[in-house]
């Protein structure tokens, strides 16, 4: 029933989409991470900044990512003003629309994870740093951030895996990454089970590598027990 030649051929075709899956994941996770840090810090401020971040998190966590992708891809391109602006060379391309939507989405989840990490930094550590005469910036960079990162790492690892899975949605706006190619092969051959097996194996391998990597970093950052 299972046809090895078909499986190897399918895996070969699907691997052609791997570079796109990887670059979508990497760029949106990096950009989303930077944005998330900024949001987490703004959330600690009082007043309008904190309110903005709360609204942002509410909107991006409360609605489906696919709606966000469609809104950015089809919704924004409706406006002639935007089509004549400097942003259009980017937003014209499905690739950058997908990156933008993925980054904005992960920033909402990641900012909450980072916020949790920041809250978990013991106040005694901060006071100790202050007593050493560290400037606020150095205090943040040398003490608060490393401790918060260590605290947040397991949850952030999960978020990275979720993001890699989410890049599959880019196929809906015409990008031929792994899932897009898988859909095309299913459409041509109707052998959905075998194609699922192959594509699933690629994603699982990728995600277990990521989980392993996060675990290694976690171990490095942990104090010796």
């Amino acid at each position, binding site marked *: 029933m299972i046809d090895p030649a078909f499986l190897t051929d399918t895996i070969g075709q699907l691997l052609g989409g791997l570079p796109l899956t990887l670059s979508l994941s990497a760029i949106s996770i990096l950009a989303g991470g930077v944005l998330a840090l900024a949001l987490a810090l703004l959330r600690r401020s009082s007043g309008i900044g904190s309110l903005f971040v709360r609204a942002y998190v509410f909107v991006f966590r409360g609605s489906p990512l696919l709606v966000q992708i469609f809104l950015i891809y*089809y919704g924004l*391109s*409706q406006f002639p003003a935007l*089509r004549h602006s400097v942003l259009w060379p980017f937003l*014209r391309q*499905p690739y950058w629309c997908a990156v933008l939507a993925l980054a904005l989405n992960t920033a909402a989840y990641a900012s909450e994870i980072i916020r949790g990490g920041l809250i978990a930094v013991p106040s005694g550590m901060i006071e100790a740093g202050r007593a050493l005469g560290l400037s606020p910036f150095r205090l943040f960079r040398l003490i608060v951030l490393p401790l918060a990162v260590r605290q947040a790492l397991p949850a952030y690892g999960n978020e990275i895996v979720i993001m890699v899975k989410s890049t599959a949605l880019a196929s*809906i706006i*015409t990008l*031929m990454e792994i899932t*897009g190619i898988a*859909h*095309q092969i299913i*459409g041509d051959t109707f052998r959905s089970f075998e194609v699922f097996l192959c594509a699933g194996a690629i994603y699982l391998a990728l995600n277990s590598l990521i989980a392993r990597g996060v675990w290694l970093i976690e171990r490095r950052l942990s104090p010796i027990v």
Partner: protein
Amino acid sequence: MNAKFACSLALALLLGVSAQAKDWPKIKIATEGAFPPYNMQNADGKLAGFEIDLAADLCKRMKAECEVVAQDWDGILPGLNAGKYDAIMAALSITPKRMEVIAFSVPYVSSPTVLATTKGGGMENLPGTGTRINLDDDAAARAAIEPLRAKLKGKAIGVQVSTIQADFMNSYFKGVADVRVYKTAEEFNLDLEAGRIDAILAAAANVKAAMDTPQGKDIVFTGPAFGGGPIGIGSGVGLRKSDPELKGMFDTAIKAATADGTLARLSNQWFKLDLTPPS
């Protein structure tokens, strides 16, 4: 458990699969209901369109009572062979690939495949605009496509997934043009109007429908119109290979509707073009 499945299974067991009626007082016809102006659903959920009107006319000629039902495009061919209905009228192009699985009546509409672009996008008047190319004629096809390949190099062209147009793009322009595959025609129309893609490749009748909307006023045909080859000779009624009598009935009715001008009248009414197949 899927109720439909259970019912059809029970029916198959009760009646035996090979039991077949030889005359056809009742015919069940499937359409997609989402492909204007061929077939669509009104706001009140009723089916309408060129094929709905044509089905009514053909059934009158065949003296049969017809029921037209909506069926998702994805499962429309397998459903015919499963006996969920007896015929398909859903802008189903007659192609050699499909003829391996089902039978077709003679074509009742022949809409060539065309490229369309927007005014001012720099893709108007591609070589061959206004001509008609039969892809079965190898030399003519090559002569028409060579200059197009140069013009489409690196351009983003939208097609709909699993259509003859997607096949056409992949067989003649793979690696040349940036082929973008969309789930629905609405989506590539939006992207063409937004200027995100340079052109679309679609059936002329559908492009014409998009042109007639206020937002589509800047869409123009460009390059030659293609027929034959992987595009096929037009759309016909899809039928089971095991029902030759029914095919005979549809063929006779379609020929009569062509001869007395009914086909041309319905075509002009729905497409604003006469898409009667050349006989």
